[in-house]
C-alpha cells in the first residue's frame, strides 16, 4: 500500500509484530498490536511497555547561553534548570495561547528539546525565528523509545545499570549495546520509566533487545492515549491549543516562579502581558478539569457538559474509557466556578445526560521514581 506518510526507523518491526498502522501527525504509526488497546494499557501499568515515539521532534539548541535564549520563547525556568535535568515547558503565543508543549533537558553544553510530532516543523521555525543569531537549532535524526511501567527498571538494570540511578526528570548519556543512548527518567503514562533517544542505525537493535525481555510488550498509540489520560497529562491539539492560556489549562506550574510577576526574570516570553496577570488575579472564565463518570459509556472529545440547571457549562477535550479505573475518564474545560472537586456535571451522550464528577488529577496515582 503506498502512502505519503513518514515511517519511523521501527516501521517494519511494528508491522512484523502485528501492529495495526494508522496515520498520525504525518507518520504511519502503530495504534495497537495483537494484544489490543486494553491489554496493552494493563500490561504497561503492571509490567513494562515499549512505545515507539520516534515521530516526535528531537532537537538541540546551542550557543553561548541557550537557557537564556530559549526563555525568550517559554515561560519555564530554564536558567535555573540544573545540568542533567529535564523540565516541562510551553511555547506561548503573543496572545497568551499555547503553540505546543515540550520537554527541555539541560545537558550542560546545550539544550536537548523534544516536541510534538504534529508541531515539529512549526516549532523549529518558531525557534529559528525567535532565538537570536548566536544560537543554533539543530534537528536530530534519532529514534526515540519509551520504556514505561513498574518493571521498566528491571529491564534497564540489564541494559544499562547506570541509568537506574537516574531519578524522575533526570537525564544522562550512556553506552549500551555498542551505541550511545540518551536516557531520561520520564514518560507519558504516569508510571516509572525511561525515554531513550538512540541513533537511527541502532534503533532496531535496541528495540529488538528490549522486546526480547520477558517483561516487555510493544504498546501502540491507543494505549498511550488512555494511559496519559488516566495520568492527567495533556495532549496538545486536544487539551491545549492556541486559544488556551496556562492558567486556563491548569498549567500554572509550567510558568517558573522566577518568570512570574515580581520574579527575578519576570516575563520576557510571548504573551507574558496576558499570562502573568491571569496567574495573579485568577481572572479566568474557564478551566481544565478531570472528570470521572459513573457507568461504562465513554464520554468522548467534543461532548457538551451541563450543570444541574441544564446550562451549557463546558466541553470535553479528551475522553475515553479508563481501563485501570474501569470508568469513563475525561478532561474538559468548564466554567471556572464549577471547576471544583466533587462538582457533578452532566455529559450529553446521544441525548442522555450522564453524570460526571470533577476529580483531582492524576486519576491514577503517579508511580514516578524519586529516589
Amino acid at each position, binding site marked *: 500500500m503506498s502512502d505519503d506518510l513518514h515511517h519511523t526507523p521501527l516501521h517494519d518491526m511494528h508491522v512484523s509484530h502485528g501492529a495495526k498502522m494508522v496515520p498520525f501527525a504525518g507518520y504511519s504509526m502503530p495504534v495497537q498490536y495483537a494484544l489490543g488497546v*486494553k491489554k496493552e494499557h494493563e500490561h504497561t501499568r503492571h509490567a513494562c511497555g515499549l512505545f515507539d515515539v520516534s515521530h516526535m521532534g528531537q532537537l538541540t539548541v546551542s550557543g553561548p547561553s541557550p537557557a537564556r535564549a530559549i526563555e525568550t520563547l517559554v515561560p519555564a525556568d530554564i536558567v535555573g534548570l540544573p545540568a542533567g535535568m529535564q523540565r516541562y515547558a510551553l511555547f506561548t503565543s503573543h496572545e497568551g495561547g499555547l503553540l505546543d508543549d515540550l520537554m527541555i533537558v539541560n545537558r550542560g553544553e546545550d539544550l536537548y528539546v523534544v516536541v510534538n510530532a504534529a508541531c515539529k516543523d512549526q516549532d523549529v521555525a518558531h525557534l529559528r525565528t525567535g532565538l537570536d543569531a548566536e544560537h543554533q537549532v539543530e534537528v536530530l535524526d534519532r529514534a526515540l523509545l519509551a520504556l514505561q511501567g513498574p518493571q521498566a527498571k528491571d529491564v534497564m538494570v540489564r541494559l544499562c545499570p547506570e541509568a537506574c540511578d537516574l531519578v524522575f526528570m533526570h537525564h544522562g548519556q550512556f553506552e549500551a549495546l555498542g551505541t550511545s543512548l540518551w536516557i531520561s527518567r520520564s514518560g507519558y503514562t504516569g508510571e516509572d520509566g525511561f525515554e531513550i533517544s538512540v541513533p537511527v542505525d541502532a534503533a532496531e537493535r535496541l528495540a529488538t533487545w528490549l522486546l526480547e525481555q520477558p517483561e516487555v510488550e510493544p504498546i501502540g498509540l491507543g494505549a498511550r492515549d*488512555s494511559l496519559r489520560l488516566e495520568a492527567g497529562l495533556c495532549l496538545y491539539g486536544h487539551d491545549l491549543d492556541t486559544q488556551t492560556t496556562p492558567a486556563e489549562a491548569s498549567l500554572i506550574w509550567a510558568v517558573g516562579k522566577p518568570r512570574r510577576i515580581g520574579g527575578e526574570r519576570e516575563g520576557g516570553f510571548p504573551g507574558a502581558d496576558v499570562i502573568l496577570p491571569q496567574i495573579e488575579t485568577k481572572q479566568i472564565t474557564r478551566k481544565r478539569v478531570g472528570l470521572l463518570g459513573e457507568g461504562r459509556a465513554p464520554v*468522548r472529545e467534543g461532548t457538551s457538559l451541563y450543570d444541574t440547571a441544564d446550562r451549557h457549562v463546558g466541553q470535553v477535550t479528551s475522553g475515553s474509557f479508563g481501563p485501570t479505573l474501569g470508568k469513563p475518564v475525561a478532561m474538559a474545560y468548564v466554567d471556572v466556578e464549577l471547576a471544583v472537586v466533587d462538582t457533578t456535571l452532566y455529559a450529553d451522550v446521544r441525548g442522555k445526560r450522564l453524570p460526571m464528577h470533577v476529580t483531582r488529577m492524576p486519576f491514577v496515582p503517579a508511580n514516578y521514581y524519586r529516589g
Partner: protein
Amino acid sequence: MSHIPANLRYTDSHEWVLDNNDGTVTIGITDHAQESLGDVVFVELPDTGRQLDAGEEFGVIESVKAASDLYLPLSGEVVAVNESLEDSPEAVNDHPYEDGWIIKLKLAEPDALEALLDATAYDALVSAEEG
C-alpha cells in the same frame, strides 16, 4: 482471517442475523466487526418492546477507540436485549456469535431475511475489505 459461520445471514454493515425459526431473529456483530472495533467497553441497548424499521440505528457499541452505531437490517419489534453486556461488554469480542449477541427481534416481514447476505457473500465482502 475472521470466523464466518455458515448458518447465519449477514449485512454489509457487519451485523449477523440468526433465524430462530419462530418468527424471531437474534442479531449481533460479526467477528470481523469486533476485530476492527477493538476492545468493546460499552454497548448501548434499545428498550424491549420498541418497534424499529430496517435501517434504523438500534444501539451503539463503544470500544476503547471509537463509538460505532448499530443499524438494524430488518424491521420488527425488540423482544429481548442481552443485558449481560452491561457488565461484560467484552463478550462481544470474546464470543461475538454466542454470548456477545445483542438483541432479539420479532420480524415484521419474515421473508425479509432472504434479502440479507449469506456466508459466502459476506466472506467475499470481508475479503475485499481486508484485501
